[in-house]
């Protein structure tokens, strides 16, 4: 039995300090709306796994962040989406990658978990499964927004001058979503703002319900201008998403850094094996497991706590607990 429900949502780590205030306000409204959606569901005793799916569907459907509609574009100008979901009790999980027509990737990930003998399906196999399951399918251009087309164009222009992806690069700002201070001297701009302002904003949700069950869900279009076929941390259990008996975690940020740090699993491992409480575990992992990488995460514990952490300039987030606490934030 839990000690009350708790919920957190995120819309990406790494925010430009000069983000236009209009965009800030829109983001906060969306986060608040999703939080309230989750809160209503929790107050009517919906289970954690259902709540995280519900909330992430909402985030996917809204074109603001980088998931579902509004996904960042691949180098080919298409959208390839990925997502994963994990149910703490029994640690069941489902993940998908390379989706091009599935309106809500997180729901397909859920179906992989519930209706297939596997944990992870990708590309044409995943699309075929989607057809068999009768989920809502749309044309790929449904997901493509003007804003993202513009960003891709800029990214390609910059690429022609800046780097050839076949040469190993480390820490080059364009390939990461680290924004603001220290990332790199970026001359890549759109509407007068560094490109990284609009860089990948993966979405996610973590919930512990009133029965103490934890669940996590993460969804994304991935890196702007990524190579077709590139898979990031969001669909990888233990990296971008994790849930077990003690907690649930969803991460966002530089995918490669999150994978290397197996961030989501490490929060739970540090709680289980070192006995750290939730916020300390989150702080520990952010501090110790990221090396030069930039990322953030949200987490809940089975005892009704909520926590978040990030080592970059800002993370779009919202959290709430059953005792009435609610907060939407972007900066530290």
């Amino acid at each position, binding site marked *: 039995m839990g000690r009350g429900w708790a919920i957190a949502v995120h819309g990406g780590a790494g925010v430009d300090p000069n983000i236009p205030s209009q965009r800030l306000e829109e983001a906060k409204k969306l986060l608040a709306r999703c939080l309230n959606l989750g809160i209503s569901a929790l107050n009517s005793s919906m289970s954690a796994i259902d709540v995280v799916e519900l909330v992430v569907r909402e985030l996917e459907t809204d074109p603001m962040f980088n998931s579902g509609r509004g996904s960042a574009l691949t180098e080919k100008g298409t959208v390839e989406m990925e997502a994963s979901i994990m149910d703490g009790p029994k640690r069941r999980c489902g993940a998908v990658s390379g989706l091009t027509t599935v309106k809500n990737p997180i729901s397909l990930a859920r179906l992989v978990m519930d209706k297939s003998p596997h944990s992870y399906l990708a590309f044409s196999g995943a699309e075929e499964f989607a057809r068999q399951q009768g989920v809502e399918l749309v044309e790929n251009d449904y997901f493509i927004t003007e804003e993202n087309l513009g960003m891709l164009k800029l990214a390609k222009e910059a690429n022609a001058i800046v780097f050839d992806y076949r040469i*190993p690069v*480390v820490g080059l700002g364009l390939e990461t979503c680290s924004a603001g201070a220290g990332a790199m001297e970026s001359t890549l701009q759109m509407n007068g703002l560094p490109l990284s302002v609009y860089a990948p904003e993966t979405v996610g949700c973590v919930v512990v319900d009133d029965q103490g069950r934890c669940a996590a869900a993460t969804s994304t279009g991935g890196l702007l201008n990524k190579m077709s076929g590139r898979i990031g941390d969001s669909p990888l*259990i233990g990296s971008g998403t994790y849930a077990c008996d003690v907690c649930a975690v969803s991460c966002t940020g530089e995918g490669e850094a999150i*994978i290397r740090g197996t961030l989501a*699993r490490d929060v739970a491992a540090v709680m289980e094996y070192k006995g750290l409480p939730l916020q300390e575990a989150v702080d520990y992992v952010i501090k110790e497991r990221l090396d030069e990488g930039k990322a953030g995460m949200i987490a809940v514990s089975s005892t009704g706590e909520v926590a978040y952490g990030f080592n970059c300039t800002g993370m779009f987030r919202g959290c709430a607990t059953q005792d009435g606490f609610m907060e939407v934030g972007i900066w530290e």
Partner: protein
Amino acid sequence: MGWAIALHGGAGVPLSLPPERREPREAALRHCLQVGVEALKAQRTPLDVVELVVRELENNPNFNAGRGSVLTTKGSVEMEACIMDSTKSCGAVSGLSTVMNAISLARLVMEKTPHIYLAFDGAEAFAKEQGVETVDTSNFITSENIERLKQAKEANRVQLDYTQPIQTDPTKEKPTADGDSQIGTVGCVAVDGKGNSAAATSTGGLVNKMVGRIGDTPLVGAGTYANSYCAVSATGQGESIIRATVARDVAALMEYKGLSLKEAAAYVVEECTPKGTCGLVAVSATGEVTMPFNTAGMFRACATEDGYSEIAIWPPSTQN
């Protein structure tokens, strides 16, 4: 401290394995161990060593990787692999159908792109750009695996009719009724005398798997992992290994709970995965090696600098 190496050719060996199926695999393990040991003695880096050994295993049609990969439900091959070293650099690939050596492509992803993981058409396109060896996909398909797929499909049909008992013929090597094959993923871990280690794993996946299914092998932290504590490569039932983040947990137990390599690996295999689903090989930064499994058997081999070496299939107490 000293160098150490361990490799595996899959967990989940039927007790009824006849000599003509066992001996070529034992010989292959012996050969691959030798290849790895000589490379370590010649001061090749652990990353080079594990890639080299796994390439040998991929090229051998008796294992479920590269040539000899098991087939999807459509009769095709979709190969995947992952490589990682103790600096936590890593590379992974999935959904390959023409690349001769998936593990080498994984290494190229690690070293030649800003990414970690490429899959399906994108991975194949990258392979072409990099000029790696590719062949027609039919080259990976063996008659043994065509037969295995056939039996798996038949077993599924039988299983749907739950009034009939599933016949098991102990004289034939057969996949289990749910389509799991008793033929395994391959992997190798190695550490040099200075604490640098690496892990590599490669597979064709599960017999009769859905097209597009990804298992534990290419997932960093599940089937493959390395950091400053140890290097781990796992084999068995992918979905269980993913859920238990097997490879990461061995290292995490060492780091966060202070367990030894042997204790950590034994704990993960015995307590964190269901019986019959998991085996692994691991080396520690200090040159120890361990090869636990909770299946009936696991094709494995290891050697350490002090002269110890072992090639085995069954659990230690049943060795003769």
